């Protein structure tokens, strides 16, 4: 048991480290603990914890199918550990998913709010149902020792074949659907990974991984508990996995050849190197090792083969899940250490649960005996504290909890201040709406008289991409004016007049895309270069100089708020540009959609029609007002594109 105890100590340490990160993650959010961004929203947690975890747990359905459907009874002794591994794997997936979900407490939403068009909906249901099936499949094992549950156990044993069949069906469905998730993004995934047959590739590799995982787990626990390795039993499993891997290689390269993508194999991107590492680890090296004579006899050789193949296939899931993503700005996603720690912590927790189950229930033929737990054994002094810590259970309690606590403290030490206090969204300054808004006065005059508007009146079409990324919304300003009642409709949207301006543009106060901004510029008012006001010209004398004791802005700025403005200003903290636009536009669109029974005008795609290379199309030099009121001409934006 010395090896088990050493491993448990390490696992509890990892768990402690992960606990520190987990507290930070749930308190301060994903921004504080991950390198994920709007450009790469899926990373290691989806790739490893969810997709890798589901694939690693494939051993459950592969082995139950082998034994109960194909009646290969010589593998009966590995059914229980395989089902236990699968069960813990799916529990780990569910827990890992909670970390990655922005609103983890909404995880049950998919059971009520159905979206039958989404592969994720299917994956969610299948994982939920299969976890239930696995629980029912494994439940008879712990129930063996409890006489009160004997009838439940007998019922579940009778139900075994139907459960196995349902389990295989559910596994087939969602192992492949995890691949279907990525069919939606042909331009985001590097061409060596994207394939219309991704679901098939995922399913085939999951079978191979399931078999390899059974081998790995068997030999690893044999090493841990000093049991006799099941080399003979594992050999046919390894050979079966070999055939699956050959099929996988044929499918993958055949698909690349069929679609004419083979030239990418020797391109000079770093993703190509990643591809070769992945293919070598998941198929080529294991296949070569399977061919050697050592594979028949040597448990170490089998162990190494399975370890390499498992690493390779999990790497494949991580690559598809985020590492091989082509981000819009060409930015590279590499996992933050905290993401790795959480993943390791979840694996550690699952392993500890596995060891617990193995030691307390009859997962194997015989429970592993602990020679130190013999009451006749004489106590030994602990080498560090020079005391007797107690029986193995009590000593373990003392040591593991200490390892956990110390590691958690160390984790909090490592989580630096900026990380513990989330930086939130990156500041993204906004700019004036682009486009030919023209002379609205001339347009209104033309509308009144019924004559065609002169050329100088402009088209009245704006392009709203205040962060200048060319991903924006085409806004038919003139059309909105005409629909909402001409001149008097300005105040429906425009609710603030900047000094020396009327119906000022949104960007003047909503100065950041994603962050609220202060529309009142205190520095400018107090600065000698600005308004050059003394404190007491605004703040009341004899009171603290806060916003509570100050005269209203409208005392000086008489026309700050346009008469009849529908949006009432209660605070000078302006919401972000995105929030302001969405609240204003969607609010109106939803009402009109209901009134006129046109549901489509409240959809996202009604306005967000995609990318418009505005600057190139119109050769337009857009401009904005600098704070001092001068007109500044900016160069067109540079948006580096991979495609």
């Amino acid at each position, binding site marked *: 048991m010395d090896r088990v105890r050493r491993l448990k100590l390490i696992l509890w340490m990892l768990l402690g480290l992960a606990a520190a990160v987990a507290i930070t993650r749930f308190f301060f959010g994903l921004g504080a603990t991950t390198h994920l961004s709007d450009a790469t929203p899926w990373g290691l947690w989806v790739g490893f914890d969810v997709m890798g975890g589901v694939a690693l747990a494939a051993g459950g359905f592969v082995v139950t199918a082998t034994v109960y459907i194909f009646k290969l009874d010589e593998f009966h002794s590995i059914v229980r550990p395989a089902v236990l591994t699968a069960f813990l794997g799916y529990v780990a997936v569910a827990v890992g998913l909670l970390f990655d979900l922005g609103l983890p407490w909404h995880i049950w939403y998919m059971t009520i709010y159905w979206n039958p068009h989404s592969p994720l909906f299917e994956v969610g249901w299948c994982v939920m149902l299969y976890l239930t099936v696995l629980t029912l499949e494994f439940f008879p094992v712990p129930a063996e020792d409890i006489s009160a549950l004997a009838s439940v156990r007998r019922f579940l044993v009778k139900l075994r074949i139907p459960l196995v069949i349902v389990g295989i069906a559910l596994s087939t469905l969602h192992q492949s659907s995890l691949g279907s998730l990525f069919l939606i993004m042909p331009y985001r995934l590097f061409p060596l990974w994207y394939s219309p047959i991704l679901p098939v590739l995922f399913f085939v590799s999951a079978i191979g991984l399931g078999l390899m995982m059974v081998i790995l787990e068997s030999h690893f626990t044999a090493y841990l508990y000093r049991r006799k390795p099941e080399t003979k039993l594992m050999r046919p499993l390894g050979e079966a996995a070999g055939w699956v891997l050959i099929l996988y290689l044929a499918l993958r390269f055949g698909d690349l050849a069929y679609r004419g993508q083979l030239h990418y194999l020797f391109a000079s991107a770093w993703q190509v190197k990643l591809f070769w590492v992945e293919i070598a680890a998941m198929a080529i090296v294991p296949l070569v090792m399977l061919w050697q004579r050592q594979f028949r006899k040597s448990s170490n050789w089998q162990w190494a083969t399975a370890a390499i193949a498992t690493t390779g296939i999990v790497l494949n899931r991580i690559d598809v899940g985020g590492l091989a993503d082509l981000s819009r700005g060409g930015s590279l996603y590499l996992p933050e250490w905290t993401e790795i720690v959480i993943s390791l912590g979840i694996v550690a927790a699952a392993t500890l649960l596995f060891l617990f189950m193995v030691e307390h229930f009859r997962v194997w033929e015989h429970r592993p005996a602990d020679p130190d737990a013999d009451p006749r054994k004489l106590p030994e002094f602990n080498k560090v504290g020079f005391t007797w810590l107690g029986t193995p259970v009590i000593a373990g309690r003392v040591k593991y909890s200490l390892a956990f606590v110390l590691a*958690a403290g160390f984790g909090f030490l490592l989580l630096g201040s900026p990380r513990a206090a989330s930086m939130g969204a990156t500041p993204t300054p906004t700019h004036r709406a682009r486009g030919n808004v023209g002379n609205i006065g001339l347009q209104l005059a033309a509308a009144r008289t019924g004559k065609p508007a002169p050329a100088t009146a402009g088209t009245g079409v704006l392009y709203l991409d205040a962060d200048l990324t060319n991903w924006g919304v085409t806004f038919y300003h003139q059309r909105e004016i005409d629909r909402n009642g001409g001149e008097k409709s300005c105040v429906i949207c425009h609710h603030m007049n900047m000094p020396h301006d009327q119906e000022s543009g949104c960007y003047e106060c909503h100065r950041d895309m994603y962050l609220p901004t202060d529309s009142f510029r205190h520095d400018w008012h107090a600065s000698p270069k600005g308004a050059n006001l003394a404190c007491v010209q605004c703040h009341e004398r004899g009171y603290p100089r806060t916003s509570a004791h100050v005269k209203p802005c409208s005392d000086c700025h008489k026309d700050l708020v346009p008469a009849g403005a529908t949006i009432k200003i209660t605070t000078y903290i302006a919401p972000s540009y995105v929030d302001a636009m969405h609240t204003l536009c969607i609010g109106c669109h939803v009402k009109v959609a209901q009134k006129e029974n046109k549901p489509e005008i409240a959809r996202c795609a009604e306005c967000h029609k995609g990318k418009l290379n505005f600057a190139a199309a119109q050769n337009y030099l857009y401009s904005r007002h600098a704070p001092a009121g001068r007109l500044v001409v900016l160069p067109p934006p540079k948006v580096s594109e991979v495609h």
Partner: protein
Amino acid sequence: MTAWIDFARGPLFRLSLALMVLGLLRIFIITLLEVRDGYRANSDKIVSWKEIRRQTLGWLFPMFRLWRQRPIYSTVSFLFHIGLIVTPIFLASHILLWRQSVGISWAALPQVAANWLALLVIFTGAGLFLGRALYSPARKISHRQDYFWPLLLITPFVTGYIASNAVISPRTYQEMMLVHIYSGDLILLLIPFTKLAHCVLAPLSQLVTGVAWKFPPGAGDRVAETLGFADRPTWVLNPRLTTAPVEEAIRKGGVAK
């Protein structure tokens, strides 16, 4: 020096606080589990729950039991503990740090009250130290570390009081803060691993002695067997029964036999 202060206020404080909270939780749970184990081992013994409850409540509030025996000591000690716990948690400057870093805050003490409480801790702490050093019976049952704890505990209060009342020593603010924060971190760090852990273990002390501190049946014989006296019945007072074999075993680093 600012960098050192920032380190102690940031990462080191997080480490200390995490170790304190988790460490106290750990020993509390371990103690309860051991009480459970002890109860299971001695299920044939009678445990007087009512007496345990009465004793625990009696000792937790010193005005009941200790007051009758040592009124001055119990009053000083009680006041010391009140100030020690209340002041750091409800000090406005500390709450401000919490609000800036984590974003949570709660009601604060007025500065005047905090000042008086700090002085209370300093003087009662010094009083406890002097009482231990000058009162002969107390000195006899004291270990060397017992003189250290009151001095360590009042260090952040002295330095914090001087730093927040700048008129006392206007030029040493940074130095005072340095000592204040590092000694505070050290206290948090030491709490779960030293006798300061009585802050959570004290309510359990009567439970442990009442429930767990009983030998399981046949324990005496097993102890004798372990110590190498298996051939002698333990209830016979034997002059030849010495601790020499045990001492030798300790010297060797293992147990005899």
